[in-house]
């Protein structure tokens, strides 16, 4: 079957979604939508897109797309996702982060479950070959048990943070943290499109007493020697029997006990971003073709990423370690400084607003 795709949002990120279509045999880009007529027409001309719309409802009604790319700013995700899902669109690719707000995350989950609309978050690095390779390497047990993960990026917690946490969870075979203890600062981050503190550092506790040190801050360690701001996306994994690393620009590889050679291969965002986006997009069609082949970036994997990040922000607000539990329940650890408090009901939008207010003071 050949699937009909449309793109909502004709900005620079939209172009990176569109440019892979010529290399996907069973997907056609048939429409685009943007309020800015000039930008929309220029975009459509560049990619040879016949359908051009300024209204989402009209586009869906006339074009009946199978896949819609939602490449808009992150401050309003729920409304267009709901609109598309309720209109019967089978699959939505949404740029990361899935949302800026816990309440939206829960509602998106509900809408997807109720309508059957497949929501896929554009954490396309899962389709770079090194990350599945690392996951399989860890699962093979060759490197023993994972002890510690250092994950570092210069982008903010809701800008590059979702990519970073997503990759950590992926290589750990979707293992989710049990608790988190985070610090945050930098009110200027709220002036950015992915509104959040500009500096967040967190330690996550994972089952088996594993630790993940996760930092999203321009002061982060990132990858030594890399100068481009957005190229800092670095994961080190210390295991009982070896070491794995993955740089966004540089190399990825591993060393393992008993091997005389270090395995190392080039890793380059510049070379991998287009094929990665292509394979990511094509995998949506594969999932639509065959439900037994789910997309790597489906809500099942994307939502825990958001809850882990929201949990870090709540921890930073409270200044203590909090336990992360399934079903969006976040209960304070009894070991928090000085007092024992229980907060039922999970992370809320108000928690994130309170963090901002606290930083402002």
């Amino acid at each position, binding site marked *: 079957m050949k699937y009909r795709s449309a793109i909502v949002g004709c900005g620079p990120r939209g172009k990176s979604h569109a440019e892979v279509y010529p290399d996907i045999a069973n997907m056609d880009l048939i429409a685009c939508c943007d309020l800015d007529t000039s930008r929309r027409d220029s975009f459509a001309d560049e990619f040879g897109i016949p359908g051009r719309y300024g209204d989402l409802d009209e586009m869906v009604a006339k074009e009946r797309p199978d896949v819609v790319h939602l490449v808009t700013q992150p401050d309003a995700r729920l409304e267009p996702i709901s609109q598309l899902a309720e209109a019967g669109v089978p699959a939505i690719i949404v740029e990361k982060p899935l949302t800026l707000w816990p309440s939206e995350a829960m509602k998106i989950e509900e809408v997807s479950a109720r309508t059957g609309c497949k929501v896929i978050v554009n954490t396309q690095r899962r389709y770079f070959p090194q990350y599945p390779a690392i996951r399989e390497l860890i699962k093979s047990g060759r490197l023993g*048990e994972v*002890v*510690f993960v*250092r994950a570092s990026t210069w982008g903010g917690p809701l800008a590059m943070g979702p990519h970073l946490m997503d990759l950590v969870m992926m290589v750990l075979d979707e293992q989710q943290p049990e608790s988190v*203890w985070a*610090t945050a*600062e930098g009110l200027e981050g709220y002036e950015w499109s992915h509104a959040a503190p500009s*500096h967040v*550092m967190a*330690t996550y506790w994972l089952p088996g*007493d*594993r*630790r993940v*040190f996760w930092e999203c801050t321009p*002061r982060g*360690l990132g990858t*030594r020697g890399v100068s481009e701001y957005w190229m800092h996306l670095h994961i*080190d994994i*210390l295991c*009982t*029997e*070896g*070491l794995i690393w993955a740089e966004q620009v540089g190399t990825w590889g591993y*060393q*393992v*006990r*008993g*091997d*005389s050679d*270090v395995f190392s291969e080039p890793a380059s965002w510049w070379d991998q971003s287009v094929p990665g986006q292509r394979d990511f997009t094509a995998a949506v069609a594969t999932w639509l073709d065959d439900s037994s082949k789910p997309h790597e970036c489906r809500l099942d994997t994307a939502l825990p990423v958001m809850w882990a990040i929201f949990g870090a922000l709540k921890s930073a607000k409270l*200044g*203590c*370690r909090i336990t992360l539990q399934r079903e969006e329940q976040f209960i304070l*650890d009894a*070991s*928090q*400084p*000085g007092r024992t408090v229980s907060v039922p009901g999970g992370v809320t939008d108000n928690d994130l607003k309170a963090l901002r207010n606290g930083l402002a003071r």
Partner: protein
Amino acid sequence: MAGSLRVSIVGCGNRSVEHMNAVDSVLGLDVVSGADEQADGRARFSDRYETPVYDDFSKLLAQSVPDVAAICTMEYPRYQLTMQAIGAGVRAIVLEKPMARTVTGAREMVAAAGAAGIRLVVCHQMRFADEFVAAKLAVERGMIGTPYLYRASSYGQLMEQGPHMVDMVLWLANDPEVQWVMGQVADIEDGRSTVHPAPAFVLGYVSFADGSRAVLECGRSFQRAVELPDETWLQKRVQVLGTDGVVDSIVAHGCKLMSPAVAGWQTLASGDSSWNRATVAFYEELRDVVNDGGTHRNNAEASLTGFEIIHAIYAAALARERIEITPDMDPMSLEKIMGPA
């Protein structure tokens, strides 16, 4: 050879036994006196030595000023005792860790000793254990490339084993300039009953001017070394991640290296024999620098940086913001965190 250096043990509690054992093992050091306010401490000393023991350090100094004062008390009286020893004109002072209770006190002690030309050293004896000496050599020889992440974890909280952990990070990192510190504390009530009252669990992040970072995890919720499921006080681990490999050291257990220069993990040190005589080696070096000159690897100037980091972690936790180590850094952060019992 110079005559033996005369050593006084100040504070004869449990911890002093390690010092007594070490001093007794080192040729050229002799225990000549002791002091302890507590009768059981004096009894411990008298059971071992026939030399005088006093209930007041002032009385000891009035009778005879030793060459070396080993101050093995808890941290609270350390400032006063150190200043007394400096005033009396000893040649060297050994401080148990933590070197003081407050950062202000530590700074004044180091300054006073420096002005008087007295060697002040802190018993961070991990610098003498093979498992960490091997790690330092591996780092210095470039076997892991450029180090960029130091990770330290211990069962003991930041004022218990933390001084060792911070000191070891600084040593392996070649005493870099500290840019800023962040920290978080927990388990305050549990921490009140620990030997050196402080929060029973701490996370600390340290940024160094050379671009490297340290992540510290000290206290009861620490990450156990998987190889050591049951031993707690020996759970002191430092891992250094470099551009070309990693070195991993655990007190009394060994040092492992993974580097392109070798096949897989290579054991650089193993066993507990070196750790067990680390305090002896500490005193041997003290004897040598007092007699022959030079700088002890545990000199208090280096230790002070580590102590400042510890208190910057508390200050950062209290302020909930990034802290730079400055002369006016809040010296009472730990006391404010602990509050009234």
